[in-house]
């Protein structure tokens, strides 16, 4: 009986989107700070080790927001087994934001009588609803907003934080391209346009393959959605923030998942 319960639990956990894929997902540019207009190349991949490519990601949702707010698509995109790569022309003075995701995605889970495992779907909410068989039981929908991003600056840094008001976003604090290893950096996050208070920020330095521990340091966001991060070493870092919100019974969406990650470079003092 106990064994059965564990199996059932595992299956249901697997059915949810983010928990199923525990890999870190990241965008890594060749440069974070430029003094002359140039093309910057990106790796886009999911992996357990930072920053070692492992699984190429879809570039369909990749957008580049230039300092003037214009949106560009990646240049020379190639999806390979272990990494996806693309280029971006960095030619305007100021800060570019390179991002993927940030828009709601929906998942369904339902049991068709007589079938061993629950069925699952992914797509727009209306389409998912249309595909649920009339005799299905245990119908559940979940929503996920997942944003991955990084920042590149040509010349003087400018404010180019995302402010869509959807999901988790980095909205202020230290500029992502002026970070120094011996100076704490304050970052401010929003969840759906309001301070993301109480969420956990996880900060992991590059090079996990060459140490015994992940080296992740966690911070809890204060009432303003802010945390002051202390860097252990100069180098590249991945910062991740996530939230799972169980919705009240009777809500059409049973659970909402939010995740955010940003790749940053921290300079030697």
């Amino acid at each position: 009986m106990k064994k059965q319960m564990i199996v059932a639990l595992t299956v249901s956990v697997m059915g949810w989107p983010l928990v199923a894929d525990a890999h870190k997902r990241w965008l890594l540019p060749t440069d974070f700070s430029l003094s002359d207009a140039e093309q910057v190349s990106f790796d886009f991949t999911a992996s357990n080790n930072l920053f070692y490519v492992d699984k190429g990601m879809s570039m369909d949702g990749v957008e580049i927001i230039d300092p003037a707010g214009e949106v560009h698509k990646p240049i020379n995109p190639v999806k390979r087994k272990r990494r996806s790569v693309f280029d971006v022309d960095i030619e305007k003075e100021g800060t570019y934001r390179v991002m993927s995701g940030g828009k709601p995605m929906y998942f369904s889970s339902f049991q068709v009588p007589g079938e061993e495992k629950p069925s699952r779907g992914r797509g727009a909410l209306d389409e998912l609803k249309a595909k649920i068989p009339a005799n299905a039981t245990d119908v559940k929908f979940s929503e996920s907003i997942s944003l991955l991003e990084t920042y590149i600056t040509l010349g003087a840094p400018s404010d180019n934080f995302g402010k869509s008001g959807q999901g988790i976003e980095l909205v202020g604090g230290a500029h992502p391209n002026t970070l120094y290893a011996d100076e704490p950096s304050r970052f401010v996050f929003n969840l759906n346009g309001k301070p993301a208070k109480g969420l956990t920020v996880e900060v992991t330095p590059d090079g996990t393959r060459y140490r015994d521990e992940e080296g992740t340091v966690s911070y809890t966001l204060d009432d303003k959605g802010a945390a002051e991060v202390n860097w252990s070493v100069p180098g590249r870092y991945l910062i991740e923030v996530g939230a799972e919100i169980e919705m009240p019974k009777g809500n059409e969406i049973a659970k909402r998942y939010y995740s955010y990650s940003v790749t940053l470079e921290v300079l030697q003092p």
Partner: protein
Amino acid sequence: MRKLVGVAALMAATSFVQAETLTVELNIPEMDVAEYHRPYIAVWVSDDSRQIVEHVAVWVEQEKWWRDLRSWWRRGGSQTELPIDGVSGATRKPGTYTLTWDGDLPEGALTLNVEAVREVGGREHIRLPLPANHNGKVEVKGSKELGLIAATIAP
């Protein structure tokens, strides 16, 4: 307009000592290496919050690599329009150079920064605190990319 007001407020909040002379002696050492390129060098004065107060020298070539003077670039070089009259110029060969800077410096603790970076070589960033009363001489010897750095400040 807003920016102008901000600058005016800043000027009012910081008191300046009149006309100081800063003389910097800077040595670029000879390198016994197979492939030598002259270093890019930036010399600047910073305040106690590490912000650039004055650029004293910026010796660079290709714009693409200005960013490799990474402290200077990110602390404010990136927000500065080059060339700067009497400050910026081409890279120099090994030797000792004397730089003279005249002007008004803010009161309080100041640091002379010398950053050197060499293609296929190393990087060195020297921070030399200037005398507290803005009067006197301080010096330090670089460890690799820079030789002796001496700064004299006088009213």
